[in-house]
């Protein structure tokens, strides 16, 4: 066992612990975006895929470099874009409905709308 390997193992274990600590604080509401974000982070595998090309000099090497790069790029680009798309939808308040209605202010408005339209009693 080389000292280098020992360092790698220590980093791995510490990163796992940091992961447990940070992720256990994520609320259930965000679990889907969390998984998708984690998905994007393992897109770092693209770095490894690119490094294949450094030594590739035969058909097998080229095929592996191509497939790994395509897989990893799909993972990383798709992951971040879809996470962003999801998180954009999480809003604190309902966005105003564009149709002619004024932004609803509970009861008063409901009454006004009622008298304008059919006039049936609430």
């Amino acid at each position: 066992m080389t000292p280098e390997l020992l360092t790698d193992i220590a980093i791995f274990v510490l990163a796992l612990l940091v992961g447990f600590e940070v992720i256990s604080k994520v609320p259930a509401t965000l679990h889907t975006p969390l998984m998708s974000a984690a998905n994007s982070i393992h897109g770092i595998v693209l770095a490894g895929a690119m490094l294949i090309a450094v030594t590739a000099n035969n058909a097998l090497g080229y095929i592996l470099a191509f497939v790994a790069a395509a897989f990893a790029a799909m993972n990383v680009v798709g992951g971040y874009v879809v996470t962003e798309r999801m998180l954009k939808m999480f809003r604190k308040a309902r966005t105003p409905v564009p149709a002619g209605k004024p932004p609803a202010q509970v009861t008063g408005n409901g009454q006004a709308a009622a008298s304008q339209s059919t006039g049936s009693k609430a």
Partner: protein
Amino acid sequence: MSAFDWITQLLYVAAATCFVLGLHLMNSPATARRGNQVSMAGMVLAIGTTFALVIHAGTVTATGWTVMIAGVLIGSGAGLYLARTVEMTAMPQLVSLFNAVGGGAAALIAINDYVKLAGSGVTESVTIFTILDVLIGAVTFSGSIIAAGKLQGLINSAPVTFPGSRIANTAAAVVGIGGGIYMIATPSVPTLIIIILAALAFGVTMVMPIGGADMPVVISLLNAFTGTAVAMAGFVINNWALIIAGALVGASGSILTKLMADAMNRSLANIMIGGFGTGDTGPAIEGPGGDVRSIQADDAAIQLAYAQKIIIVPGYGLAAAQAQHQVAELAALLEERGAEVSYAIHPVAGRMPGHMNVLLAEANVPYPQLKEMDEINPEFARADVALVIGANDVTNPAARRPGTAISGMPILDVDQAKSIIVIKRSMGHGYAGIDNELYVNPKTSMFFADAKSALTELTAAVKTLVG
């Protein structure tokens, strides 16, 4: 270490920091988007650094550049297209697919490294991590593709078993692990190929017998596997960025797996051995012992229109009927009337962890209204109406008693509400295949209809009622 090495390694550390900070910012919906952007910045940094490394190495042939760039462009294009066009209901399939390609890429990295070094002698530690990476990566690849196929409906989502499927699964595991042990002693490329094939077969035979409603657990588990595979690839090529990122994802996947299994009160082993069935559409049977009160849209609308506090309980049936926009519209109308509306989300509502929240967020439901189980349960007693849409087992009070198929499973305390309306197509069973005692509760009214048309009718009825 040269100055260049120092700089690139420090940039990798910076990238890893961004990943951790990004995940940390996901602890609240208000900061989550910034978190994703921080994480993205880290990724750009890491990939940019790697690009510099590749150029600096100066050994990449013209063909090498071509295949690498072509691969990146094609992969990015496919990822971008899928991410932009995917329906939110199809999110579990997409996440599964990304798990597959991530795990697959990790396995390929180790395969490449091993094949290259095989002639000149590999160290034992490289062999061990190659075997781990290839085993986990290949299992993730084939398993995730099967999971995505099941979720997309391309493969029967019911547990698929054939005579000897358990034996085939065990045999694949034995060959994979046995081959790995042999390979540590005697490095050989053919053995590596056998291990890859065995791991691929194991992934398929592992996921095939698992039913649709257990998918939240399976996806989480495969997510943890992908992370671990990426970390193992990091060990093989001695790259810290991969080790740290992989470990973070491994931790995230493990936590989610445990949360999902706990929410179903089942052990991971029990789920992997095979579910009860898919249960999306149980056979329509006559009501269980006790009277079932059936109502129409008008009666339900009256109850809702005069309620002060309404809790909506959405389940997979709501998503399956694509009715999340209809429920949001009804809720908005009731809120305009001055009612307090919130949503009770069970952890396993949907097909992946947190899935229901995304579907409702897409339908323009503000996130403060989305309540987790522990937060909402004490509130049911104060609710005038609990509106259950397409949720079954997670509302069954039988879970509180011992001796039923769902005993001990955490449930939403819907039966505590002052009155209950259940929208459901029939008296069919849920995943667990047992009668839901909630339906014969005297406070409960059953509105038998498809979720989407029922909600449209309800909204129309409330509108006519209040003008």
